[in-house]
């Protein structure tokens, strides 16, 4: 029996280099809390990180980790899960990383429903590269890559996730680590692909969507009578952005995970398969 774990057990020797006040601290805290509350050991879990301030978390958390390419965390995580379905896998990414560069993987991961948890640090800006427009940046915002203001309509990650076939779609706020911890646990518990968009203030490059801006707007869906099994209703809530911004579980649907439907994965994990007894002679015969 291993001893019970606490949040600090997931600390690495490197204290985060994020800007003081960065919303990433809140997500970091909630993530470690959630893992501790779930009773996980650091070696039970693989966290796959994208590239960004968000992805730099790879240096600040102690679990097995894979700090992949910008935008490509999801396929690495899915590959790992298919190889070892017993592994607990969480993916950490940025909004540029996950919705910009990696948008296509996001789209298809939602349909595929592999049982992993995807946490996106949605700070509506590119942090690590110093303040360019992100897919979620609001229209008209001036960023270094759009000094005359953003023209594109912002991407609504949760509405998109619902439409693309996500089976678990939730939104958290880095300023509410209590709720966020619970959302991470719910996402992890969900059998299938769980998408958790986290509203994350970037105190350095986003002077518009600040903590107080969010505090004035976010509300918890829990207790509002929201029926998260109703796709229409979920979509309507997901579109809310402005006066009110919902947090909590927007949509949830229990359906087969990808792993459940792959015949080759029904028994044990592939990684446990013996390789010393492979015999292809039967197949070779068909070529004679």
């Amino acid at each position, binding site marked *: 029996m291993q001893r019970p774990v606490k949040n600090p057990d997931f600390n690495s020797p490197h204290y985060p280099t994020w800007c003081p006040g960065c919303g990433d601290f809140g997500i970091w805290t909630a993530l470690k809390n959630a893992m501790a509350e779930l009773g996980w050991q650091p070696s039970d879990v*693989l966290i796959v990180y994208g590239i960004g301030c968000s992805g730099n978390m790879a240096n600040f958390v102690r679990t097995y980790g894979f700090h992949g390419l910008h935008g490509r965390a999801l396929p690495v995580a899915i590959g790992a899960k298919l190889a070892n379905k017993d592994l607990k896998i969480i993916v950490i990414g940025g909004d540029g990383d996950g919705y910009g560069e990696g948008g296509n993987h996001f789209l298809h991961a939602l349909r595929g429903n592999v049982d992993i948890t995807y946490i996106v640090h949605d700070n509506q800006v590119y942090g690590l590269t110093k303040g360019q427009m992100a897919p979620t940046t609001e229209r008209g915002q001036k960023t270094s890559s759009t000094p005359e203001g953003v023209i594109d309509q912002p991407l609504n990650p949760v509405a998109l996730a619902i439409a693309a076939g996500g089976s678990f779609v939730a939104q958290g706020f880095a300023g509410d680590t209590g709720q966020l911890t619970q959302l991470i646990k719910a996402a992890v518990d969900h059998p299938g692909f769980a998408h958790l968009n986290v509203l994350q203030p970037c105190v350095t490059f986003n002077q518009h969507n600040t903590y107080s801006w969010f505090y004035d707007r976010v509300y918890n869906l829990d207790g509002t009578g929201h029926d998260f099994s109703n796709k229409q209703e979920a979509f309507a809530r997901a579109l809310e952005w402005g006066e009110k911004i919902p947090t909590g579980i927007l949509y949830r649907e229990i359906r087969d995970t990808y792993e459940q439907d792959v015949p080759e994965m029904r028994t044990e994990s592939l990684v446990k398969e013996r390789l010393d007894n492979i015999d292809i002679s039967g197949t070779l015969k068909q070529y004679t």
Partner: protein
Amino acid sequence: MKSKVNTFTWTIGGAAGDGIMVTGAMLAKYCTRAGLWTTDYAEYPSLIRGGHNVQVVQVDEEQIFEHDQGTEILVAINEETVRLHAASLSPGGALVYDSTRLTINPAMIGDRTDIVLVPVPLMDLALKNGGKDLMRNTVALGATLALLQAPRKLMDDIFQDTFGAKGQKVVDINVATCRAGYEHVQKLVKDFPWRIVPKENDQRMVIGGNDALSLGFIHGGLKFYAAYPMTPASSILISLAELAPTYKHITKHAEDEIAAVNLAIGASFAGVRAACGTSGGGFCLMTEGLGMAAITETPLVIVDAQRPGPATGLPTWTEQGDLRFVMHAGQGEFPRVIVAPADPTQAFQEAARSLHIAEHGQLPVIILTDKYLAESHWSTPMFDLTKLRVQRGGFVTAQEHGGGPWYQRYADTVTGITPRPIPGQSGGVFIANSDEHDAVGHANEESDNRVMQYRKRERKLEAVLSFLPPRLVHYGPDDADVTFVTWGSVTQSCKEAMRKLATMGIRANVLQVLYLLPFPVAEVQQFFRAAKKTILVENNGTAQLGGVLKEYADVTCNHQLLKNDGRPFWAEDIAAFAKGHM
């Protein structure tokens, strides 16, 4: 002059969608079971319908490597086939055509009178004998066997083995339509000079490059294959998907090639043997992942089945245009292994071995093939399944692992290879980091650390040498007058040219560079010191191997023969070139 027993070329042509490919495969199987050697080759455009398709099967008593330009039997499903290919019929050869749809007039066959016209109502006989229209190909098969005075029973066995699982009815229809064609022609042509006389021989397969490679992967312990379809690599995905239930691996048709390579890296990181495959266009999208496999020291095998570029290029044709690209693909500098098999046996062996090299060396291995190898078939001796059996390696056991908190997965070692735990294994953890990193994988930008990690990675290339077979392969006599220097599937054409030159009394041999990286400098230099006259033969326009030979080994061939029109070489042309330069 060719012998007329057990030595002939057979060609079939039709429109895309006419289903002619299966027919050639059946004939090749027949001849191989009859103790002969075959090779076949197909040309088709990047269209589903309407374009012209042609397939050639070459048969011989000796092992052959490439088909000839001429043909002894031409089966024409449509008129275009007659117009395009009648000229290639040898004197005395037979033109079998669908008399239900075609009437031949002299102009169509260039007024040739030295060939035998064999009208067969292919479509009629197919329909009459219970088949659908595509079964006219089976009628043509029967017609072919009759011409060649070959026993029908052997064919019926093949129908049984191939279609037995689909029910006796399917078998019967095949047997009946084949017999209909057979009997029709038996009455029509009595003394066709080319014949099949079955021989006793070891069991052999008829197999193509992609299938051999797929089976090599399975034999080598592959558990995960990700791909996005792309000619001529697609059939690897398809074969592996079909075999998944039997061998319990997973195939994933990914949303794009970027996903495919990252999926494979993820699976490999998690501890299974994994690969991905594509052609050059998809490989472009995998190059960033290639570098990530290298810096995270995650085993990875990528297949690049080449086709002519640039861009979409000639999707269904062949070329060797990607050598330098795969040698240097990916930003920055990192070690990789590149192997270019020439034939199904090598495809099988090197696919199996690539997984071993990647796992033990913890680095990316690229298997470079091309459409000619991928989609052509050769009679091939049974693969030796006692060799290249899986031996796992590069992992740290639970005992060695240590309790943590961190595991020094990127600690420097003598060989550069550091054993890794399987994520989830209890003990110290680590980060696989696409950033330059320290021993546990945390980002580290120090000068000394960078240099150490770079050298550690590069050093693995030496360690990997012990997993490799001889990187050069020689064919033919040692003391040849002329040596063909080549790589990949062109080796087959060169070997065939060598056979042809032997009949002209010219001693040739072939040097195949099987492993392009790590490049076998000393071996090449030694070979060149001994060679009398060298001819570089490459299926590209810029002599890429030639440049590599110069850069790495400071050797230059005396002559070079290049071709880049999307077609493989004709052995005849190679032989003629050599003769012209003697």
